[in-house]
């Protein structure tokens, strides 16, 4: 999933960012993959992820098509993992996001034991992924390096905004929204936790990391 590969930040900034996803190969093993993908999500939920999602329906925080106006004062900000698991109806990429290495390592080990036959990828710092593999006793099969952004980079926003917006590599979390949320947190108009949920709802496959985003926004307050 290149949408998790090119996250902006240095390796240290990925210390709380472990995206682990399962994928069936078209024509290779997708025909009977639906229950296996669901099993992947069910197991992930046991390891306290900070987000869970599939590429067709989105993550554990979703927008509402029929929002009650009173919700402005009482918005539900709880990630709903069960809806993600139950909503999976076709084979697609399924992802779990963890904010600590121990959970990611234990989950990878468990997934190896479960032997689902799906392709499993870890997207994080190079060292972080290697440590997950070592913990599970698996040699890495293939690795895809991000070389970062180049070319016409003059119009890209600040590093802080980029760290937030690139957590949806599909580009669904706009730079403008990330900037607006950063400003609102600075001005005390929203808490970091609230600002994070607004952005997470735009991510269409559930790989946005609310925990890392909250840390980045809290850094805005600390820097004041």
């Amino acid at each position, binding site marked *: 999933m290149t949408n998790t590969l090119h996250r902006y*930040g240095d390796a240290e900034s*990925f210390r709380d960012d472990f995206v682990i996803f399962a994928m069936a190969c078209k024509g290779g093993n997708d025909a009977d993959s639906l229950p296996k993908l669901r099993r992947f999500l069910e197991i992930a939920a046991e390891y306290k992820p900070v987000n869970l999602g599939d590429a*067709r329906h989105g993550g554990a925080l979703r927008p509402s098509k029929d*929002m009650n106006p009173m919700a402005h004062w009482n918005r539900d900000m709880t990630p709903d993992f069960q809806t993600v698991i139950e909503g999976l109806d076709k084979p697609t990429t399924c992802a779990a996001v963890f904010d600590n290495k121990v959970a990611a390592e234990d989950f990878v080990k468990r997934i190896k034991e479960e032997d689902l036959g799906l392709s499993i990828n870890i*997207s994080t710092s190079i060292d972080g992924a290697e440590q997950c593999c070592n913990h599970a006793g698996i*040699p890495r099969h293939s690795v895809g390096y991000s070389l970062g952004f180049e070319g016409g980079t003059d119009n*890209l926003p600040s590093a802080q905004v980029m760290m937030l917006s690139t957590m949806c590599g*599909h580009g*669904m979390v706009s730079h403008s929204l990330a900037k607006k949320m950063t400003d609102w947190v600075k001005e005390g108009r929203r808490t970091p936790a609230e600002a994070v949920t607004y952005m997470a709802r*735009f991510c269409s496959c559930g790989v946005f990391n609310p925990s890392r985003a909250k840390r980045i926004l809290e850094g805005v307050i600390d820097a004041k």
Partner: protein
Amino acid sequence: MRINPDKCVACGNCTYVCPMEAIYIDPVIKRATIKRDECVECYACFNGLSQEHLNPTIVRTTRKLFAMLRIRFEPEPDVCPTGAFEPDELVWPRVVRRAFSDPRVPHESTGVEGRGTEEVKTNDVTGRVKVGEVGFTIEFGRPGVGARFTEIQEMCWALAKVGVSFEKKNPITSLMSDVATGTLREDILNEKVMSAIVEIKTTIDRTEEIIRLVWDVEKRLKTVIAIGVGTRCDENGEDHIVEPILERLGYKLQRAKTNIGLGRLSPAQNPAAAKETVNA
């Protein structure tokens, strides 16, 4: 995508959520309006904004009243209060915009959601990138800039000229009228998309040559480029070949996606091939 002017109350929420900054409040009609040529049909507005279905007249009146009293009502920033977004029926070639921009729509050519490629993510099943080979994903327009196919074509031409092979199961390759020269269909060239990935494969010894070529072409392009380099690890899970080349070229590698090799062919789908595992 269009915004129904009878419903829009010009709250401005959508102007911030558009990844292409293609939505603005038209000062003449006092409604949110989409710059059609800049819109990439990503549906972030339609899919991402929560929708209330309030009466537009009441909302406008309330907003006017509040404005007169200099009172700021601060609604949730991810809501369209009147559900004013209405998807257009997209026809060729505009439909290409959505295919490359709305991640929930699977690409027709590959059946894969997102940017439509499996790359090394399923390499343990496909054997797409073998030992001694390197797979490049050259992504245009990301993050939040967008790209037109004219720019992508320029890169494809340059790559084709040095004889690299384009990945067959890739949406850009499927839009080429001549794969040998990297020429894209003429009718899509001016279409703008959120991002698109050109995927090629070559031998490891050509890694530096390809990167230098990309550097050369990207100087002439306005859009931003993200390069991914995928390779097969050795039997110990190590890569002692590609990583040093990239570092020698000045890249400080921070992040990677790692395929941990648990995938395998389904015997039911591939009765013959399943006997030989590609990840062995």
